């Protein structure tokens, strides 16, 4: 019991964040909130990768005397790339929101589609 709940708490945080972010993307009509939800969703995956790389009792992967066990650095490096991708996605998304606001005077999804259908 304690093993699954406390021992794997990183994974619980990941799952909670993932579901929360995903739910926000699906349920909110406000485009900015969607972007935030998307960010939370992606962040959960970053945490997941970093958790995967951790070796219990391991230290930073720099060879030094007295240390035998090292954590795996590769997932952290991969996620550095994914974070850059995430930043790029967010900036593209936000600039689209700005242009949508200019064109439609609103950032509520249903109002945007209502405007186009009305014409």
């Amino acid at each position, binding site marked *: 019991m304690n093993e699954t709940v406390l021992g794997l708490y990183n994974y619980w945080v990941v799952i909670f964040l993932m579901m929360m972010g*995903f739910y926000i*993307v699906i349920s909110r009509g406000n*485009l900015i909130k*969607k972007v935030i939800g*998307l960010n939370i*969703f*992606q962040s959960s*995956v970053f945490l*997941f*990768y970093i958790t*995967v790389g951790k070796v219990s009792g391991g230290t930073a992967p720099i060879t030094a005397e007295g240390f035998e066990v090292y954590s795996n650095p590769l*997932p952290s490096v*991969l996620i550095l*790339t*994914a974070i850059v*991708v995430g930043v*790029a*996605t967010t900036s*593209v*998304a936000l600039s*689209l*929101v700005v*242009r*949508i606001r200019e*064109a*439609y005077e609103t950032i509520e*999804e249903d109002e*945007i*589609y209502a405007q*186009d259908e009305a014409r």
Partner: protein
Amino acid sequence: MSQALQAQLPVLQVVIPLLAAPLCIILRRRSLVLPFATGVCWLTFLVSVFLLGDVLEAGVISYELGGWAAPWGIEYRVDALAAFVLVFVSGIAALVLTYAPRSLNDEIPASRHYLFCTLYLLCVTGLLGIAITGDLFNVFVFLEVSALSSYALIALGGRRQALPAAFQYLVMGTIGATFILIGIGLMYQMTGTLNMADMAERLPAVEGVRTALVAFGFLTVGIALKMALFPLHVWLPNAYAYAPSVVSAFIAATATKVSVYILLRFMFSVFGLEFSFEQLGLGRALMPLALAGIFVASTVAIFQRNVKRMLAYSSVAQIGYMVLGISFATATGLTGGIVHLFNHALIKGGLFMAMGCVMLRLHSVDLDEMAGLGRAMPWTMAAWALGGLGLIGVPATAGFISKWYLIQAALEQNSLIVAVLLLLSSLLALVYVWRVVETAFFHEPSARAREAREAPLAMLVPTWVLLGATVFFGIYTRYSAGVAEQAAEAVLRGLP
């Protein structure tokens, strides 16, 4: 060609457009940028043709990026399937950009042309990278390179609907890519490797573990989102309908096809035929979705007033054909799926290019406005009709070859129902193609159609080259179905 250069071809395939993209920003002058980008695209096409030649002659090419040996470093791996995808993606990219200048002048402000070229080359880089890489994480990175640039390309569309369409695509595309990222992470957790061939060797030991199953689930859903498999296609129609004509032509012809390629790679090369199809029954899951997609999307296409939107729905249906071929998981079925990747890329690319000609002269792609257009723009609309015949699958067009293989695959498996459904679905295509042909050739011209002139030769020639190719490959199939057959066999064998 010198040996040294030939050895570097795999990396040049990606590096040339990647480096050329920022150069477009430095060049900036419109008169320089477009010819430069077009030249770069033709050069990448040339590289891919050489690669295909090498692969067909000497077998799989493996390239170690930066000299780091394979399971640790990133490997570029070109087999028959990858080379086939590289050739048609780079070929269509080059042809569409050759066609582009007049259409761009009309639809995108001249001050933004250099940005368009940058984005376009980045998108090409991403798509080619996906096809060539043998590293799982690399797939994700290239996927996002191509996706992010295509969001921006779509948002360049002239009407404001392009903006929410691009945003919706961004949200769904990012969710799809993140799902793929989760799947790759879980697989890395199980096997400790990111190299596809290495992973294929290590996976059988852990295939029963739930983590591997979850990874498989995330990957399947993520890829299905990216390739717009029904019912995950909602982002596609608006994105294709409101993007600039040039962008529609390029993205409709290539982006979803490359996603289908990712599906093939993951399900056959990495997970393996036995695990994906025999243990988990992926075929049984994909087939109903594919058939539902073919019928629902074709029916919806019939009722569209906007012809670009109609073609977009037709694309969703065509993805259904490709996935149907894959779901058989036999040599004939896969050949049908893979050759349809290629044939549909030609047909849909050509059709969207013809719509670009219509957009240039009519400033509308509304079916009512296109009434009687066959008189004012006979060459454009004849090209359109030729592409439409390909969509239906009339003999002596490329579309027929794909359907021939698919029906054969269905009959091989004794699923007569699927074969009959395939034939019936062609009737739906006939209806939506005929609607446009009838309106354009047999209706009284609309006010706008009366004033329209034939599209300029600079646009007509590439359109006809692409649609002419559909007839060529409908009759002479050595380099379409022939290569596809070789690719299908290689894929079924799995990675050596």
